[in-house]
């Protein structure tokens, strides 16, 4: 099976129904993608499939074949931050940080579709992403900052 992750092509030999989450983490070593619940309840595993946010714990490997898969590490890097990551740093959103890769992937997908989201848009898009540490107030603020950063360019 051929998978393209963060612009790199990989060949993997896995079951068709192995969740993309575990292909990425255990077979290919993309540890930025996190396991939280395995049942689409927390959003920690969120990646982009052709730009759309999906829960990788609920996406079969076979269904990701041929798609552009983007993980948090492909969204941007410490040296070349994506606007969402920059906003997350500015607001110091993270506490334990474990949910944040998923939060940022969700937020990036939201902003790609809705460049100037309302509070309700943000709540709607982000409410599937659980943060056990309760960083929601900062996530809200950071999404708005990211929207502003993106509109500048």
């Amino acid at each position, binding site marked *: 099976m051929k998978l393209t992750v963060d612009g790199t092509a990989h060949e993997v030999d896995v079951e068709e129904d192995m969740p993309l989450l575990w292909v990425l983490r255990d077979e290919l070593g993309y540890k930025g993608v*996190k*396991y939280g619940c*395995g*049942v689409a309840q927390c959003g920690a595993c969120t990646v982009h499939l052709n730009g759309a946010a999906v829960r990788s714990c609920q996406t079969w490997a076979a269904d990701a074949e041929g798609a552009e898969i983007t993980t948090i590490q492909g969204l941007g890097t410490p040296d070349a931050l994506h606007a969402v990551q920059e906003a997350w740093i500015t607001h110091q959103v993270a506490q334990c940080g474990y949910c944040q890769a998923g939060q940022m992937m969700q937020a990036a997908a939201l902003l790609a579709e809705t460049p100037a989201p309302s509070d309700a848009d943000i709540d709607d898009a982000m409410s599937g992403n659980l943060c056990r540490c309760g960083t929601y107030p900062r996530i809200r603020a950071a999404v708005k900052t990211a929207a502003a950063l993106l509109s500048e360019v």
Partner: protein
Amino acid sequence: MGRVGTIARRSFLVGSVAIVSGVAFGYYMYRKPSANPLLDDLQEGEAALTPYVKIDASGITLITPRADSGQGAYSVQAMMIAEELDVDMDQVRVDPGVPSPAYYNTALAAESAPFRPTDRSTMANTTRGVMDAVMKFTGMQMTGGSTTVPDGYEKLRMAGAVARETLKVAAGRRTGQDPKKMTTERGHVILPDGTRIAYTDLAAEAAQVEPVDHLALRHPSRWRIMGKPMLRHDIVAKSTGTQAYGIDFEPEGAVHATVRTNPRKGGAMLAYDASAAETMRGVQKVVPVTGGVAVVADNTWRAFAAAQAIDIEWGDAPYPPQMDAHWQALSDSFNDDQLDSRKRDDGDVAAAAYDAEDADIVEAEYRAPYLAHAPLEPSNATVLVTDTRVDVWSGTQVPRFVQANIARLTGINVDDVHVHVQMMGGSFGQRLEDDVERQATEIAMQMKGTPVKLTYRREEDMTHDHPRQIAMARGRGVVRDGQVHAFDLGIAMPSVMSSQMGRQGWTVPGPDLQIVAGAWEQPLAIPNYRVSGYRAPELAPISSWRSVGASTNGFFHDVFLDELIHAAGADPLEERLRLMWHDPSRKVLEAVAEMSNWATLPGAGRGRGVAFCTSFGVPVAEVIDVTATPEGIRIDNVWVAAEVGRVIDPVNFENLVQGGVIFALGHAINCEITYADGMAEQDNFYAFEGLRMRQAPKIEVRGLENDIHVRGMGEPMVPPAAAALSNAIFAATGQRIREMPMNRHIDFV
């Protein structure tokens, strides 16, 4: 020398040791506080240097020994060292890891778990020793949470100051100039003529000079780093997906394992059939572990799938299988034989509360459920066992327990068990338990030479968590002339300390003050005021959950107080202020009154509630306002004021408090662990949801600095939150919610 320095010197002494091409500064811990002079009394192996500052040719490293489960503890510790060392945060590495073996020994590790073990040889210490241990254990429950700041406030700054002054002496030796005329800046000693010498250049010489003693710490008005917003050292990594957690650690050649143990926790595994699992792709081994079975595979998901394919027959639970029996046990505990403590007994409650006119009497019963910790990172640990040593990689808050328990399990000398603490994706108290490390070791012992990475499925994690205690309270009070006249609250719960420490082989004699924590110590001048703790029998195994006893008792105490105030016809905030005798506590109430504009009335369908709770020495007041919508209660705003002595980092402080309030409210409205047939009925977040973003209120936070004691803020925002919410719902709807989770009684949007 100022007061601070004096206190600091009584409890520790900073020293230094030479390391490869450099120097390490830290403090000597000693075990005989009455002995004098300090260092002369140190016996071989009794003391060791705990390093905080390490300088060598490659740079400056600040060692932050307290664990970080997400509260920013590493950064706060580093800030305290850097403040006195005169380095900037961008110049240093922060290393939470195990100190280098060059100056590490086991006595040093005793610092991270300052207990006297209750094995037979030291039983002579008996009650006093054990109670000491209980106090210390209680104090350090949230290692890195509520104790990191108070514990390090003097020690860490002093370590930085000693290092700075000693580096000046080293510069004096080299240049022949007077250290008193030198200054320091950004990691350099500045000579009188302006020449700069980098600390890294002086390190080797600094190791040769006697560390400078008798130092006063800087006055807060001269702080450059503390009290200012700083970029957390882990924030870039955590904002780019590059922060590695325990679950991401994978040494070369590691295999992936998962376990299934009896969901009736502590029960036996009677039989299992793994024939189907063994033939599944990628499965290498199926091995028994205590109370269950483990699957070892080449991929986590394959291990999960195979584990689910095993047929297992489970034994009975060592506790009542149904919830009714748990509640009945609590209900039956309100009697003189089970009275555990009565630390608050002012006035004459028996006369005042039990001899009053019926019309003035208020009686109520409250309940709080078991709650899982459920940090977002599921339990995991990686262990490598060989014939001569064990390596453990895990996000644990109790590395010393892990080390000792694994030494016992494997028969390998405790010095050869190496625990490498990893970043935690949350804890809330869960990582004070060490089941996962023990199980990973059991598996690794059956696969010597191969690193075994054990990951729990979320379902295993939630159903095998040692939850927060279940608790019940009964209040009886009397109001008179528009005031609260008598307040009698009894609280029944099993002992968390006894359950938790029991698993480490300890016994807890005497009262467990967690049974009344968050209730008995409230600074209220109610004329007849009594708080009694009743010790219920052990039920399901329980453990410390963020704010421990106060997480239930803050709710009981302050909702009951609110009921009395309403019965008296008084204003909830005014009456609390009238009763409050402790000035810093009054100030937090006054702060939330102002922040929430308490004096103005909320609109129709809205309600505002206030609550107050002192826990871990921190007085916290919260006001919540809610709207009763046709779809249910909406939580609109929360205002929080907390007295912490000093706010070390205002950004981290605000984030921590906001998050803690959301954490508390989420559990209060929709979370519980219930048992049926001895098994937890909630196994994933759909049944244990907490707050989602759309439900999260706006939260305004203020940290007050009126008290001389510096306190940590990992937990104290939790206890008043549920009470303030219940009080607000009453104000909005007239319905009094006396049980958590509140969605058993009212809907939330």
